[in-house]
């Protein structure tokens, strides 16, 4: 009575076969048709779901951006041409959001990639306790961005932990700011916590790249008497070529999509100093139920991401 149920289950491959194809002379291998049917049967569930929940909404969003659709509306959906885009490009909040996101990305992309690489280098080689350090460095990543934002919201208070730490370490010289309520410091504060939360993820990607560099290269470099800096400069850095572009693209996309932190901590304020493109899209689409206007913002965002990724791909392309 302990036979595995799998042995008795009819295999998908044994499904009733439709009439055989007229001729398949090139494929004399037995079971060709059977392989096609089972293969497509296995691909289908994931492919259909991706079609339904990625491709269709993407195309739909593209279309909705040119209509007046609302989430719940008695009126029929009408085509309105580029009205939404005209309104969007005339909206100062949108330009402010674009500026904020650019500011965020310009700081986060280089700083976060550099810190993540430094962390990866620190834990690349095996040493006692390496797993402890790997786990601790990755801890902020497993903590949800929403929880992280909440936690830092508390720490950034005027009488919060950050200011107390600053005051203690500077022996009372630095009087901390009211970080999130000052338009000048709100974005830098969000930048700091974002880097703190996400650097560990990119550390893992760097680590994957570092592990793929052959140890023999380092041995050869050592035999040649290369210093640690030269080893990094001439072995590690060129060896990370592919990883570099992957890290660059993923951090940039993540930075442009800034939302959770803003939604929990500042709601775009003070004085729009932390609002972002996605935050504006969600605000208009969800709070004001203007699906079409939000779709227009999303479309602009998507084109922006695509353009920047393309430029980055071009700049980091392999030059032979």
């Amino acid at each position, binding site marked *: 009575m302990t036979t595995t149920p799998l042995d008795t289950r009819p295999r998908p491959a044994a499904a009733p076969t439709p009439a055989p194809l007229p001729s398949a002379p090139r494929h004399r291998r037995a079971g060709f048709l059977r392989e096609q049917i089972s293969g497509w049967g296995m691909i289908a569930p994931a492919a259909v779901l991706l079609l339904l929940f990625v491709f269709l909404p993407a195309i739909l969003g593209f279309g909705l951006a040119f209509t007046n659709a609302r989430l719940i509306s008695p009126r029929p959906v009408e085509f309105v041409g580029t009205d939404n885009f005209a309104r969007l490009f005339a909206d100062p909040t949108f330009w402010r959001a674009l500026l904020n996101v650019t500011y965020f990305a310009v700081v986060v992309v280089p700083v976060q990639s550099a810190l993540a690489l430094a962390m990866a280098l620190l834990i690349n080689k095996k040493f006692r306790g390496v797993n402890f350090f790997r786990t601790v460095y990755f801890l902020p990543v497993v903590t*949800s961005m929403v929880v992280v934002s909440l936690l830092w919201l508390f720490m950034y208070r005027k009488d919060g932990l950050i200011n107390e730490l600053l005051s203690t370490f500077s022996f009372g010289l630095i009087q901390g700011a009211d970080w999130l309520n000052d338009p000048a410091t709100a974005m830098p504060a969000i930048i700091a916590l974002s880097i703190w939360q996400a650097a560990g993820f990119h550390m893992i990607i760097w680590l994957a790249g570092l592990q793929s560099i052959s140890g023999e290269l380092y041995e050869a470099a050592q035999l040649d008497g290369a210093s640690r800096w030269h080893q990094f400069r001439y072995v590690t850095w060129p060896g990370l070529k592919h*990883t570099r572009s992957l890290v660059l693209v993923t951090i940039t996309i993540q930075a442009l999509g800034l939302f959770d932190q803003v939604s929990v901590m500042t709601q775009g304020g003070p004085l729009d100093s932390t609002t972002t493109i996605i935050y504006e899209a969600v605000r208009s689409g969800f709070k004001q139920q203007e699906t079409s206007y939000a779709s227009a913002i999303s479309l602009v965002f998507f084109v922006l991401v695509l353009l920047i990724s393309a430029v980055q791909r071009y700049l980091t392309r392999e030059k032979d």
Partner: protein
Amino acid sequence: MLVRILFAAVAAFPIVFMLVSSLKPDTQIFGDMSSVAAFLPVGNISFDNYAAVFDRVPAARFLVNSIGISAVTVVLGIFINSLCAFALSRMEVRGKRVVFTVILATLIVPFQTLALPLVWWVNQLPYFELNGFSLEISKGWLDTYQVQIIPFIANAFSIYLFHQYFESIPKELDEAARIDGAGWFKIYRQVVMPLAGPATATVAILTFLPAWNSYLWPLMVVQSEELRPVMIGIQYFFQLNVSWGEVMAYASLITVPVVVLFIAFQRSFINSIASSGVKG
């Protein structure tokens, strides 16, 4: 080593602060802030904040919802994505290159740009419900469990990770199994998947984290309290007088399970990412 410890301290201090503060009354949290006591469970330590959390929020319900949603997403995600990757990697299916390329192309679409059209779209989808013996069809998936699960099962990155891993398993194993008369599903189930442990662990973690942490999506599509996941619970703490001890207790409550799970899977996760060639 000093640098390593410094980085570790920076990575860990907010989390330690959160856990420690969750055990203290508000007055003491603020009192301890200027000394090292902020990071130590000293003074008036109790679980009172945790008890208060369950009074203020239906925390148990939210936890059950999130556990259910995440578990179903992870299990179905592993099954469907590995099955797809299996066919794309190990079978001679015509047109598979095109399919794989199209699947990978979905990686460049950020979820935030899909979210709003997706809300409109799921609101148009039919919803089948078995009511006694009659099948009822209604429109709209808003405010359900499945709207929090089904759109997130298929994932291009999971398919990619499985595909990379399957490529490293010798194809001769399939041939041998086929000579023994095994069908393709049996090869998948009994030959390939048992060897794909590290890839499965990685996909499990990378599916679990966004499922557990999802915030934007349930905010948009779930209204009923009894269907809400844990992250939405945070809003409850800012409606009336804010007790930071309770906030920290709730934050710890929804973070600790993930950390424990991560530490359990940690070794195979990091090693598998590090060796799976996520190199672009």
